C-alpha cells in the first residue's frame, strides 16, 4: 500500500481536489467583498461621507476600471441613490453576500464530506481485501479483534481528514492571507504587528504539538491491544471460568485501562496547554490594536473607520489561523495512524489478486493427479512437521493417511488444502503448482473438512450452502425506487474502488451439486445430511422451532391432514392416551389453567406468561365469570402448599425445576404475602396482590400437581370464560393471541406443538420419545419430511456455530465439503468429536455418498484411528514427518511395519 497518506489521497482524488480548489478560489471573491462592505457602510451612509449636502446622491453599482494604456473605462454608470437608500442598498448587498458565502460553504462542505466518505470506503475495502489475501501464517500472529479495530476505528479519522487534506490549507490559508492583506492595506504597521504574532504561532505551536503525536501513537497502539484482549476474553471465556482466572483478566484489563487513561490524560493536558498558548497569542493582537491603533487615532494619523475595519478584519484572522494549525495537527495525526495501519497491512507474500479473481464460468474438473513433491512443512516455530515428502494421489483413488502422534499427516492435508504453505518443495496438480492455480479451481473442484470447524453466525442452511457461493450467477432486476437505489449503489461502489458485485444475486452454484435451481437443490442437501447422520438432529431442531410461514407454506396448508393422521395413528397403536388434544369446547386436563383460559398461543408480550393475570381485559372476563375469587383462593392454597414443600430447601436445589408456580427467589416474597393476606376478606386485597396469587393458579395442572383443586364444575366455568374471552377480544389484543383452531396452523407455536395440537399426558414417562418418532413417521408418509428438514435448516447456529455441539459442527463441515461434489475430497481428522462407532459409520456413508451415481473423486483422509484405514484403497503411513509406508491395506497389515504396530 502507498506509504504516504498525502500521495495516496492525491492519486485517488486529484480531479475532485482540483475542482474543489477552483470552487474555493471562486468563493474567495464574495468573501473578500464582504470584508470591504462594513467600511463602506460606516463611512458612507452612516457617517455621511459623500452625502454632506442634503439631497446628495452617490452612484451605486457603478462598474468602472482603470485599464493600463486605455485609462478609465466605465461599463455601467450605476444608479444614483441618496443617503438612506444607499444604506439600504449596501445593507442588502451585505445580506446577499452572506447568502452567497453560506451557499459556497454548504457546497464545499458537502462535496468534501462525500469525498472523504468515498475515500474511507476505499481504504476500508482495500484493507479487508488485503486481509482476504494475507498468507496463512499471518493469521497465526494476529488477533482478529485487532484487525477489526484497525479497519473500523483506526482509519475512521482519515475519512474526516481526506476532504480537508488539500482544501483546508487553501481555504483557510486564503482566508488568513486575505484577512492579513486587508489589515496591511488598512494600515501597514498594524498589519506588521499581526504578522509577527502569526509568525510566532506558526513556528511555536506545531513544535509543541510534536509530543501530542507521540502520545497519539501510543494511544492508538494501547487501544488496539485492548480490543485484542477483549476479543480474546470473549473467545476464551470458557478457559477463564474453568481456571478461575476472571480476576486475573480483571487485573489485566484494569492495568491496560490505567495505561490508556494516563496516555489520554497526558494528551489532554498538552492539548489544553497548547490551546491556552494559542488563545493567548491570538488575544495579544487586539490588545496591541487597541493600544497602538487607538493612539494613532488620537494622534489623528488613522481614521476611526480604518481602525474599526482593521479590528473587524482581525476578527477573521484568528479563526482561520487556529483551524489551520488544527489542520496541521490532524494531518500529522492521521498520517501517523495511516502509517501504523499500512505497516500492519504490508505483509510479505500476499496472495496475488488473480488467484482470487471472480470466475463466473465453471473451471472444469481437475483431472490430473495431485502430488506432493519434496514437500517440507514447518510450524510457526520452525519445527519440521513434514520432511521432504513425495507422494502422488491419482484421480479417483481413496487414500487413508495414518499418522503416529508426531507423524505430520495433518500438515500434508493442510498443504493439499492450501491452508499452510510449504517450507520447501511444492504441492502440484499435474504440472501446475497448486498455489498458482486460481482459487476458482481449487475452491470448487477440491474440498476440505477438518476437526477445526468454523461456522458463520447464520442459519444452518447458509452455512451448508456457503461452499457453493463463488460468484453472483443470476442478474437481479430491480424496479422503480429499488432500481434507482441499485444504480446509485453501483455508481458509488465504482467511485470508491469497490467491486459492484450484487450480494442479492443468487450466488449458489446449483450445477455443482447436480441441481438446476432452488427447487431441486434440496434433494442433494438431504442426501449429504443423511450421509453424515445429521438429518435427525436437524429434524429435531425443526420440530422445536416455529416455522417461518412465508417460506414453509406447505406445512401450514396441510396441518389439518397432519393432525388427523397423528390421531388415527395413535388410535391404531392404542396410544390415544398419550396426547390430550385441544378441543374448543372442552377443558384440557394436561394443560395449565392459564393455557385453558387463553386457549391459544401468545403472539405478543401482552398476554404472555405472567402478564396474563395482570391484563385488564382478561381480569374483567374472569370477574364476569365469577372466577377471580376462585383463582385467588386457589392461588392462596397453592402458595401454602408450595411453601410447605419447598421452604426448607436451598434456592439452588434441583427440585425447584419441578415447581412450576414460582421460582426459588420468589418464595420469601410469597411467604410474607401469604401471611399478610391470610384471613383477610377478598374485597380488601389490592389488585396487585390478587394478580400475584391468581398467577399461581394459572400454572396449575391437576394430574401433575395433584393438590385436588380442580373439579368438573370449575373446568366448565373455565371453558365458558375462555369462549367469552375470545368473543369480545378488543381490537388491540387481536394480534396478541392466536386462538387454537383445529383447522389452523399456529404461527407462534413450534412445529411439534402444531402437530400434536394438545398436551402430552404426564403419566407416560416415555411419551415424548414415542411421540417424536411417530411424528417423524407421519411427516415422512405425508411427504412433509423435506419441509420439516427445511424448517430445521433455518436454525441459527450462533457465533462460531456454538449453538451446535462439536460433533454437529464437524458433521456439518463434512456435509458442506461433500455437497459440492469435488474431484479431490480432503478430510483431516474430520469427525474427531464423535465416538469411534459413529465415526466409522459416518465415514463409510461419506465414502458411499461421494461415489454415488458413478462419481469417483479422489478421497484423502487423515484417519483418527488406524483401523479406519481398511475402508480405503491405499494406506500411507507417516512417522516423525516422514512417509514410512505406502500400499494397499492388506499388504501393510501383512507386513511388519509401523502400521501393523499401530493397528494392534
Amino acid at each position, binding site marked *: 500500500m502507498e506509504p504516504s497518506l498525502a500521495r495516496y489521497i492525491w492519486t485517488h482524488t486529484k480531479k475532485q481536489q482540483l475542482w474543489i480548489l477552483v470552487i474555493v478560489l471562486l468563493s474567495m471573491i464574495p468573501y473578500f467583498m464582504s470584508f470591504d462592505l462594513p467600511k463602506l457602510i460606516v463611512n458612507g451612509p452612516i457617517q455621511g461621507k459623500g452625502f454632506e449636502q442634503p439631497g446628495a446622491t452617490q452612484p451605486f453599482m457603478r462598474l468602472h476600471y482603470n485599464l493600463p494604456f486605455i485609462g478609465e473605462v466605465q461599463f455601467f454608470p450605476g444608479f444614483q441613490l441618496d443617503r438612506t437608500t444607499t444604506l439600504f442598498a449596501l445593507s442588502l448587498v451585505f445580506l446577499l453576500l452572506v447568502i452567497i458565502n453560506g451557499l459556497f460553504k454548504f457546497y464545499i462542505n458537502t462535496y468534501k464530506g462525500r469525498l472523504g466518505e468515498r475515500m474511507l470506503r476505499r481504504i476500508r475495502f482495500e484493507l479487508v481485501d488485503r486481509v482476504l489475501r494475507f498468507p496463512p501464517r499471518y493469521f497465526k500472529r494476529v488477533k482478529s479483534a485487532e484487525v477489526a479495530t484497525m479497519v473500523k476505528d483506526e482509519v475512521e479519522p482519515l475519512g474526516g481528514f481526506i476532504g480537508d487534506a488539500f482544501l483546508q490549507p487553501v481555504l483557510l490559508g486564503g482566508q488568513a492571507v486575505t484577512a492579513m492583506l486587508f489589515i496591511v492595506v488598512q494600515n501597514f504597521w498594524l498589519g506588521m504587528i499581526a504578522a509577527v504574532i502569526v509568525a510566532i504561532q506558526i513556528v511555536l505551536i506545531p513544535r509543541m504539538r510534536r509530543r501530542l503525536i507521540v502520545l497519539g501513537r501510543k494511544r492508538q497502539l494501547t487501544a488496539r491491544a485492548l480490543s485484542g484482549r477483549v476479543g480474546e476474553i470473549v473467545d476464551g471465556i470458557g478457559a477463564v471460568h474453568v481456571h478461575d482466572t476472571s480476576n486475573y483478566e480483571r487485573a489485566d484489563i484494569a492495568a491496560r485501562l490505567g495505561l490508556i487513561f494516563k496516555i489520554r490524560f497526558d494528551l489532554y493536558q498538552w492539548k489544553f496547554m497548547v490551546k491556552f498558548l494559542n488563545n493567548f497569542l491570538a488575544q495579544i493582537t487586539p490588545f496591541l490594536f487597541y493600544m497602538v491603533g487607538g493612539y494613532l487615532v488620537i494622534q489623528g494619523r488613522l481614521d476611526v473607520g480604518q481602525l474599526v475595519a482593521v479590528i473587524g478584519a482581525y476578527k477573521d484572522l484568528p479563526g482561520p489561523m487556529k483551524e489551520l494549525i488544527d489542520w496541521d495537527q490532524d494531518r500529522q495525526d492521521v498520517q501517523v495512524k495511516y502509517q501504523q495501519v499500512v505497516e500492519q497491512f504490508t505483509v510479505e507474500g500476499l496472495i496475488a489478486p488473480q488467484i482470487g479473481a471472480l470466475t463466473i464460468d465453471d473451471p472444469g474438473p481437475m483431472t490430473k493427479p495431485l502430488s506432493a513433491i519434496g514437500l517440507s512443512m514447518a510450524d510457526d516455530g520452525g519445527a519440521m512437521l513434514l520432511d521432504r515428502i513425495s507422494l502422488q494421489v491419482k484421480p479417483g483413488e481413496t487414500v487413508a493417511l495414518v499418522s503416529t502422534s508426531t507423524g505430520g499427516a495433518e500438515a500434508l492435508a493442510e498443504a493439499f488444502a492450501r491452508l499452510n504453505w510449504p517450507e520447501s518443495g511444492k504441492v502440484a496438480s499435474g504440472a501446475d503448482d497448486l498455489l498458482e492455480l486460481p482459487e476458482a479451481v481449487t475452491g470448487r473442484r477440491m474440498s476440505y473438512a477438518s476437526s477445526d470447524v468454523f461456522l458463520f453466525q447464520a442459519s444452518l442452511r447458509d452455512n451448508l450452502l456457503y461452499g457453493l457461493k463463488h460468484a453472483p450467477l443470476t442478474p437481479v432486476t430491480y424496479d422503480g425506487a429499488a432500481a434507482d437505489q441499485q444504480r446509485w449503489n453501483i455508481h458509488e461502489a465504482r467511485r470508491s474502488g469497490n467491486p459492484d458485485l450484487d450480494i442479492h444475486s443468487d450466488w449458489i452454484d446449483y450445477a455443482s451439486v447436480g441441481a438446476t435451481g432452488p427447487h431441486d437443490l434440496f434433494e442433494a442437501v438431504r442426501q449429504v445430511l443423511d450421509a453424515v447422520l445429521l438429518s435427525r438432529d436437524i429434524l429435531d431442531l425443526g420440530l422445536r422451532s416455529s416455522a417461518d410461514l412465508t417460506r414453509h407454506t406447505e406445512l401450514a396448508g396441510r396441518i389439518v391432514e397432519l393432525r388427523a393422521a397423528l390421531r388415527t395413528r395413535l388410535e391404531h397403536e392404542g396410544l390415544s392416551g398419550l396426547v390430550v388434544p385441544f378441543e374448543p369446547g372442552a377443558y384440557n386436563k394436561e394443560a395449565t389453567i392459564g393455557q385453558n383460559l387463553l386457549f391459544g398461543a401468545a403472539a405478543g408480550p401482552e398476554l404472555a406468561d405472567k402478564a396474563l393475570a395482570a391484563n385488564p381485559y382478561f381480569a374483567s372476563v374472569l370477574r364476569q365469570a365469577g372466577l377471580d375469587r376462585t383463582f385467588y383462593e386457589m392461588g392462596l392454597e397453592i402458595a401454602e402448599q408450595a411453601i*410447605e*414443600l*419447598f421452604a426448607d430447601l436451598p434456592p439452588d436445589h*434441583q*427440585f425447584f425445576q419441578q415447581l412450576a408456580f414460582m421460582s426459588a427467589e420468589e418464595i420469601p416474597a410469597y411467604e410474607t404475602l401469604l401471611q399478610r393476606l391470610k384471613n383477610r376478606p377478598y374485597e380488601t386485597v389490592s389488585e396487585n396482590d390478587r394478580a400475584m396469587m391468581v398467577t399461581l393458579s394459572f400454572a396449575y395442572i391437576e394430574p401433575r400437581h*395433584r393438590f385436588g383443586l380442580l373439579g368438573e364444575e370449575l373446568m366448565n366455568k373455565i371453558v365458558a370464560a375462555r369462549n367469552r374471552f375470545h368473543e369480545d377480544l378488543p381490537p388491540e389484543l387481536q394480534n396478541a393471541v392466536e386462538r387454537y383452531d383445529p383447522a389452523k396452523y399456529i404461527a407462534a407455536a413450534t412445529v411439534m406443538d402444531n402437530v400434536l395440537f394438545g398436551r402430552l399426558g404426564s*403419566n407416560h414417562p416415555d411419551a415424548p420419545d414415542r411421540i417424536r418418532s411417530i411424528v417423524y413417521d407421519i411427516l415422512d408418509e405425508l411427504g412433509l419430511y423435506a419441509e420439516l428438514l427445511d424448517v430445521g435448516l433455518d436454525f441459527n447456529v450462533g457465533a462460531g456455530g456454538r449453538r451446535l455441539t462439536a460433533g454437529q459442527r464437524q458433521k456439518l463441515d463434512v456435509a458442506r465439503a461433500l455437497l459440492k461434489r469435488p474431484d479431490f475430497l480432503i478430510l483431516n481428522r474430520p469427525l474427531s468429536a464423535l465416538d469411534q462407532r459413529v465415526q466409522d459409520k459416518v465415514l463409510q456413508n461419506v465414502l458411499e455418498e461421494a461415489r454415488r451415481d458413478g462419481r469417483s473423486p479422489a478421497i484423502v483422509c487423515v484417519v483418527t484411528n488406524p483401523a479406519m484405514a481398511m475402508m480405503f484403497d491405499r494406506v500411507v503411513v507417516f512417522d516423525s514427518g516422514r512417509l514410512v509406508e505406502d500400499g494397499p491395506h492388506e499388504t501393510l497389515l501383512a507386513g511388519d511395519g509401523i502400521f501393523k504396530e499401530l493397528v494392534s
Partner: protein
Amino acid sequence: MLLKDEVGMLQRVPLFSGIESAKLKLLAFTSDRVSYSAGQILFRQGDEGDAAYVILSGKADILVDSDNGPIKVAELLPNSIVGEIAILCNSSRTATVRAASPVEALRIRKDHFLRLMREFPEMTIEMVRVLADRLSHTTADLIDARSAK
C-alpha cells in the same frame, strides 16, 4: 389420587414408614405419577436403573430371564416399592417388571431420591435402619437355610 393420598400410601411402604410426612410429600410431589396398562413394561432386566417405583394401585409381575424365557419370581401389590436397590447401588436392573393389570405408580427419580437422602440425614438414618433390618432378616434366613442342610 391426590398428593396427600399418595403420602398416605408412601407411609405404608416399610422403607419410608419412619419418615415424617412433610418429607414424603416433597418426595411425592417431585415424583412422576405414571400409569401403565396391563402388559406394559415398567423396566427391563439389564437396563440402567434410573428410578424406583411405588405401586399405588394394580398388580405387577417381577420376571427374570432364563433359558426358557422369562420366569415370574414374585408379584408386586399396592404399597410395595420396586427398583430401589438399583438406584442405591448404581447397578443395572436385576429383573423385569411388567404390569399384570392397569397399574398406577409413583416414579421416584434416582437423582431426586439421592438428593433427598443427602439433604435430610434423619430420613437417611430411617432408611438405613430399614435396610439393616432387612439385612439381618436375610442373614437369619441364610443361617436357617444353611443349618437346615
